[in-house]
């Protein structure tokens, strides 16, 4: 009824190719942005930012990054945890080396360093594909974690091998360390999330994204029509690692404040982000958000329901959590193999015809 293209005329090409062609979607998008940017910072507290919004925003960035590589370019990667660690350690070295520089620059530089490391580990993708590439990136995961554990320069020779984020600011507002305000850390992560989503969306619908998708769909055919596989694959690794590096830097510096590479950036982290994009939907920016929300918010929600409402023992709830999340993943994937993003697409199709589907 109100959710349809009819009556919304595009008079220019940019209008015709906009992300949200339906007026309702467009307004909804602006409303969500408005709430996220203008309203939430004024009502947020420590619990909400540290338990819900920050992990959601940071994992969303990581999922966008991995989605570019796996969902858009078709290169399977199990090295996400390792690349997040590169971002975190790069950020740590920059923060301690150049304390007066703004955190914005540190996080972006950390992303840039991760992009370079990502390209390095992306080189094997020119020769190997599929499961074999997955194994090569798995090696990257283990190598990077081992490296950050072994070489004490990376953790400034501290006795415990932990890295701790010192107090740093941007434009005079504290971003890291214990004395931050909830709204400041939230806004800092939100800016990076919006930036990542906008950049990723525009890259994936431009010529670069088309090249990635051509490689994904059939690399030989893509090569024949003139796509340079070297350039396409390595740019995908670079851009993907850039976002993953940003998320790793935020994860360490803003969210946790202290990490230990084996525990925070282990193989489980790689799987977690991979599950996010599989559940959310491969090759979809919205899917990255949906998957991150699903795997970050659901455990918290189940915990609140089980422990705080029903008063069940914490261990029972923790086990139930695994069962329910695991069960939902199976159900979702059977009901909709293309993830939450596809469910959303189907819902939109139905909405267009509602209430007269015939």
């Amino acid at each position: 009824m109100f959710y349809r293209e009819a009556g919304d005329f595009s008079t220019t090409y940019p209008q015709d190719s906009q992300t949200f062609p339906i007026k309702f979607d467009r307004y909804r998008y602006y409303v969500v942005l408005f709430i996220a940017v203008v309203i939430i910072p004024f009502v947020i507290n420590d619990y909400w930012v540290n338990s819900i919004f920050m992990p959601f925003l940071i994992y969303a960035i990581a999922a966008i990054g991995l989605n570019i590589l796996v969902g858009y370019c078709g290169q399977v990667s199990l090295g996400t945890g390792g690349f997040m660690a590169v971002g975190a350690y790069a950020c740590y070295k920059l923060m301690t080396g150049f304390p007066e520089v703004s955190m914005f620059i540190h996080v972006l530089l950390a992303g840039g360093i991760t992009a370079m490391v990502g390209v390095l580990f992306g080189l094997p993708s020119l020769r190997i594909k599929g499961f074999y590439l997955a194994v090569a990136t798995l090696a990257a995961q283990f190598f990077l974690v081992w490296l950050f554990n072994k070489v004490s320069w990376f953790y400034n020779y501290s006795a415990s091998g932990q890295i701790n984020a010192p107090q740093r600011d941007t434009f005079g507002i504290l971003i890291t360390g214990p004395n931050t305000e909830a709204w400041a850390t939230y806004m800092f992560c939100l800016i990076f999330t919006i930036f990542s989503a906008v950049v990723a969306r525009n890259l994936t619908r431009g010529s670069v994204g088309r090249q990635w998708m051509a490689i994904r769909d059939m690399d030989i055919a893509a090569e024949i029509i003139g796509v340079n596989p070297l350039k396409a694959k390595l740019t995908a690794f670079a851009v993907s690692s850039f976002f993953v590096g940003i998320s790793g830097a935020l994860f360490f510096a803003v969210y946790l404040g202290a990490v230990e590479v084996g525990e925070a950036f282990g193989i489980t982290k790689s799987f977690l982000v991979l599950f996010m994009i599989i559940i959310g939907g491969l090759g979809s920016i919205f899917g990255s958000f949906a998957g991150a929300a699903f795997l970050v918010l659901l455990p918290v929600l189940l915990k609140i329901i089980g422990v705080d409402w029903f008063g069940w023992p914490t261990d029972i709830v923790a086990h139930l959590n695994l069962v329910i999340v695991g069960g939902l993943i199976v159900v979702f994937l059977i009901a909709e193999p293309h993830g939450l993003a596809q469910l959303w697409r189907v819902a939109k199709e139905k909405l267009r015809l509602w209430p007269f589907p015939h």
Partner: protein
Amino acid sequence: MNYKLGTWAVAGLMAASPVMADLVFPSLSYRTGPYAAGGIPFADGYADYFTLLNERDGGIGGVMTRVVECETGYNTEKGVECYESTKGEGALVYQPLSTGITYQLIPKATADDIPIHSMGYGRTSAANGDVFSHVFNYPANYWNGASAAINHILDVNGGDISGKKIALVYHNSAYGKEPIRTLEKLSEKHGFELLQLAVDHPGQEQKSQWLQIRRERPDNVIMYGWGVMNQVAIQEAANIRFPMENFIGIWWSGAEIDVQPAGDKANGYKALSMSAVGDDFPLYDDLRQYVVEAGKAAGAGDQLGTVPYNRGLYAAMLAAEAVKVAQEMHGVADITSGQMRDGMENLVITEEIMAANGVPGFGPEFTVSCENHGGDGLVAVTQWDAAAGEFVQIADFAPTDMEIIQPLIDEDSAAYKAENNIESNCN
């Protein structure tokens, strides 16, 4: 983004829950995952002690206690979530039983004016209370443990261990790496050779480490392990027929559940201790009467008398004593977390206090001061008797080599102080 609506609704309900006057002790426990073997009994002991105080004494100083449990799974991200969700309830002291989570909470809790008691774990240099105003690690820390292990080896070898080879099998994390620097200093002092063998999380895979031990033939093995790593290491040691009396674990590697899988072959395994073993204490009569038989025991109620359960009791007892000190100092019964911190800083544990709590000789006597948040660092040694199925204390609480440890504490805490621009706590 419809998924946010549900969580907002949850927030509304959470905010509506009533607030009562009580002493809140959050228990960041882990009853799931590879470290649950140690996490369950500790959490049970911690909760049962406060239940006992409520049932028998009507709380502490007339104010009821409340334990808020939150499952961390030994995972730092969940630890943060637990901290944030429990601190609003009026948490008095955090005992996360995880070195990783402790590292994370040190700056946060200090900023929020809530003390942390990392009893025998966490950041060792937090013993310097001048820098770490809100962190306490009495009665003993990791470096005391490393020194105590070497002292015990010295005792066994008649005071001379020069030329010996000692291997350290450690959990490859902040926890396991803590003792390395101390052991390096001690190896210079006593002239033994140190062999470092890291075991990655969770610690089920240790074949190569023990193969190396078999090849290098160290005279002694010291272990800093936790969770499933302990059982595997002791089993592997039994498999290569490493003499168990030369194998010594830190206090987190010395529970019944760690040695039982290896059966009789684990006989003679040694572990350091900072609290007593067994259930031969008057307190246990009260625990059985008021808690277990009343059906109020935490968990399955089957952990009484085990080493980690005792340690949970001990942690709870020290917290309760600190509350009493704080109540006396400030003249209020319903204390705040800041007052709790003052109580912990002025805590004195004597034999009389332990006896009055029904646990004579349960731990070492110690005094906490503003400069020294680590107590006196007295450590005992226990040994597993497989036939009897119990740990037996073979050496009494003894001092450790503070000549080596104190400069290391000063150095590490000074670095932290400079890095974070911390002001002196004790002036």
